[in-house]
């Protein structure tokens, strides 16, 4: 192939993902609206595109399998079959199989042939008649041509009158024929021409007879007329001049199975079954006692090690709205203009021009900030991508748990950073499973409580300030305060004497090992999950909170930063050093009066903020610095909050507010308790970003390290 299309493969895989999502969403909606032709068409188109595209790249396994799905869809679409739960189930299973096949095509791994064949068989079986044709069976005429021998063909052709209406040009046919060999004789047949008055210039009345000497065979000549054969009067007479004995065509010999299928000796399904019985090399070697099972598994491990890095090497790509890119390019244009204005000003600068300079610099700042925002915007994708897996999940869950559940999604268009979206999938899944399994009651219990039989789970996403909130809400039984308390005491997570606020009690369910479900299902109830949810969300710099009303339902709220790379920070000074405090965690800053301060033995210093005593931390103590001020009443106290806990941190001065790019400490140095990362400040020095969670730990344990 002279033109290499392989670099479109990435595009194919990405597009296929979209089609897969369309098909899955469509199939799920189909259960509600079985007669919706538009919907069926949409699903069909998705499958159709995958089939067509995969064939182009030679992923025959994918295109053949999709073809079978497509046949079923086509029958549904043309009302030859009716949408039933069994068929939707089968199609959904096939979709999963198709996903795997596409993954295999991407990684080059071998798919589970037996499974694919079994599903393929079921797809064919459910249509009643097995589909004989294969998607990719396109016999290319020139490849099958007989060995050369010169022929003299006599071709008589009278094209249909409407030839021109279809954009066809008789001259093209004559040219093509001429390109195949030598035209030794050409005659025009004008017998069909009407009298001038009746002649329609847009009709074709002519015909031709020609003699062609060529090494090609009849098939090739015949193929020239592919597009017009039906309404043409066409005769092709073959007068062989000399022939050579037929030589066997052996290039690219086909596998035996394929030939058997083509000749109709066995069906594809039978062949696949036979193939699936083929033993693996390892098994045979073990049976012959040439190798031990251990040696084989060792070798298999090596094999998989070789394939794993290849899988990781693929570079993830992102689809960006062209509008976003156009705006960015506009902005870069403006930046270039500002830059040239500045260099122009710099080349002949006088002090009198200082205001102009300042104005230009301000303009540069505006440009930079806007470009920064736009570039961040490129990484922003709608959260709908992460939501799309839930309709299927909830359908499966409701089947397993024997509950009727309706899932309502909203705010799918809310955008957030691609990395964040990728990382919240699992925590969200846990929460949805939790709601389906623990939150919602079984139908009889719901009816008894005077609620509709069908439970509702709502997933919603929205922006709130600089962060994004995702809520998972159910209208189930709500969290049971007493049960959680009892369980917490039993598991030694809390003491009986502890006085806990409601909020603190709800937070117990995020402790490792905590589960109140009476019975363990395969969905949830093993006490793993909720603690992982919390850890994952906190790892993203977010928080989880719970609201619950007994008998009415529970809402989990995830609050996440829009992006991981940049935070809005407050710069503060302690002695000679500058620190950055994440703005999200600052509640307020105060200058305390003498009577607000208290010292308690064993608990350190406290400060009374409107009736609540908060631990007071002197930042210079934590990082062993030389402060300018050591008297809290002269310094500034920042009240910081994370996960409902608060602490007052004492600094010398607040410098200002700015966006900072987080550079990891662990990657470049090592982890330091109380420091989340570092950044480069405006003057080129390094500033540390405080980790509020870490600071709280230090204040509780009283340990600190020098930074």
């Amino acid at each position, binding site marked *: 192939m002279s033109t290499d*299309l392989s670099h479109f493969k990435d595009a194919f895989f990405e*597009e296929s993902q979209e089609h897969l999502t369309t098909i899955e969403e469509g199939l799920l909606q189909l259960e509600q609206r079985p007669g919706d032709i538009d919907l069926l068409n*949409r699903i069909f*188109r998705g499958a159709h595109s995958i089939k067509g595209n995969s064939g*182009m790249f030679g992923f025959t396994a994918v295109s053949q399998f999709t073809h079978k799905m497509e046949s079923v869809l086509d029958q549904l679409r043309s009302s030859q079959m009716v949408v039933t739960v069994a068929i939707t189930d089968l199609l959904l299973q096939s979709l999963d199989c198709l996903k795997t096949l596409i993954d295999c095509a991407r990684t080059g791994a071998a798919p589970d042939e037996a499974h694919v064949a079994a599903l393929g068989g079921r797809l064919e079986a459910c249509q009643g008649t097995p589909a004989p044709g294969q998607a990719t069976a396109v016999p*290319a005429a020139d490849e099958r041509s007989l060995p050369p021998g010169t022929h003299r063909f006599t071709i008589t052709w009278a094209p249909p009158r409407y030839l021109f*209406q279809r*954009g066809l040009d008789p001259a093209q046919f004559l040219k093509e024929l001429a390109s195949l060999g030598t035209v030794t004789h050409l005659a025009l047949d004008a017998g069909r021409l009407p009298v001038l008055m009746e002649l329609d210039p847009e009709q074709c009345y002519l015909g031709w007879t020609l003699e062609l000497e060529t090494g090609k065979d009849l098939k090739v000549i015949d193929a020239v007329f592919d597009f017009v054969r039906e309404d043409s009067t066409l005769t092709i007479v073959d007068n062989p001049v000399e022939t050579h004995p037929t030589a066997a065509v052996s290039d690219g010999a086909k596998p035996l199975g394929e030939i058997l299928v083509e000749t109709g000796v066995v069906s594809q399904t039978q062949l696949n079954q036979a193939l699936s019985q083929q033993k693996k090399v390892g098994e045979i070697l073990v049976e012959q006692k040439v190798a031990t099972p251990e040696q084989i598994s060792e070798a298999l491990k090596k094999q998989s090690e070789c394939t794993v890095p290849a899988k990781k090497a693929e570079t993830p790509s992102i689809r960006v709205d062209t509008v976003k890119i156009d705006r960015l390019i506009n902005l870069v244009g403006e930046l270039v203009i500002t830059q040239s204005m500045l260099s122009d000003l710099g080349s002949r600068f006088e002090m009198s021009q200082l205001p102009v300079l300042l104005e230009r610099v301000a303009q540069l700042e505006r440009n930079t900030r806007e470009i920064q925002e736009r570039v961040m915007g490129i990484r922003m994708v709608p959260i709908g991508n992460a939501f799309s897996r839930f309709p299927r999940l909830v359908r499966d869950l409701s089947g397993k748990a024997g509950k009727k559940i309706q899932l309502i999604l909203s705010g799918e268009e809310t955008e957030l950073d691609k990395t964040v979206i990728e990382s919240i999938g699992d925590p969200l899944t846990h929460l949805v499973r939790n709601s389906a399994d623990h939150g919602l009651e079984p139908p009889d219990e719901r009816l008894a409580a005077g609620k509709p039989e069908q439970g509702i789970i709502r997933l919603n996403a929205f922006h709130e300030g600089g962060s994004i909130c995702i809520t998972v809400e159910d209208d189930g039984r709500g969290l049971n305060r007493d049960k959680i308390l009892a369980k917490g005491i039993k598991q030694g997570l809390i003491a009986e004497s502890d006085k806990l606020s409601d909020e603190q009690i709800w937070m117990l369910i995020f402790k490792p090992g905590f589960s109140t479900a009476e019975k363990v299902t395969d969905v949830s109830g093993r006490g793993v999950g909720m603690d992982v949810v919390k850890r994952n969300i906190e790892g993203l710099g977010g928080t989880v909170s719970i609201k619950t009303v007994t008998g009415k339902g529970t809402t989990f709220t995830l609050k996440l930063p829009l992006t991981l790379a940049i935070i809005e920070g407050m710069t503060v000074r302690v002695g000679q050093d500058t620190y950055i405090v994440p703005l999200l965690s600052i509640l307020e800053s105060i200058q305390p009066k003498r009577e607000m301060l208290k010292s308690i033995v064993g608990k350190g210093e406290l400060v009374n903020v409107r009736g609540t005593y908060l631990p007071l931390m002197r930042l210079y103590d934590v990082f062993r610095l030389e402060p300018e001020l050591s008297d809290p009443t002269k310094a500034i106290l920042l009240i910081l909050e994370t996960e409902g806990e608060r602490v007052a941190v004492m600094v010398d001065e607040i410098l200002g507010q700015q966006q900072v790019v987080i550079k990891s400490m662990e990657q470049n140095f090592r982890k330091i308790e109380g420091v989340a990362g570092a950044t480069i400040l405006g003057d080129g020095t390094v500033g540390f970003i405080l980790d509020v969670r870490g600071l709280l730990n230090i204040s509780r344990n009283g340990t600190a390290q020098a930074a």
Partner: protein
Amino acid sequence: MAKTVLVVDDSPTMRQMVAFTLTSAGYQVVEAGNGKEAVGKVNGGAKPDLVVTDLNMPEMDGITLIKEIRKMPALKFTPILMLTTEASDDKKKAGQAAGATGWIVKPFNPEQMMAVIKKVLPG
């Protein structure tokens, strides 16, 4: 002057591949994601020497597009090739009746596609 080809397919991958092959062969390419878009491109001033269109598309399918194009005086005789996965005669017949010049059966490789194009587009 380079000939212009209007490529109509709802699958971006397919469109890109066809466009890439055509551009490599020295053609100018105008792309459209469905029949409606294609009609819009033509009304907007695109003058294709050849139209290559998929059949199954949202908004406006290939057959309707072919009929629409044949109604336009400027494109009355312009060759139109349809891309089809079905080697079935039904689709071909429907296409022919609508005024399609010919068809390219998927999957095809660039050589096969160029061969069909050379067949219908005067050099």
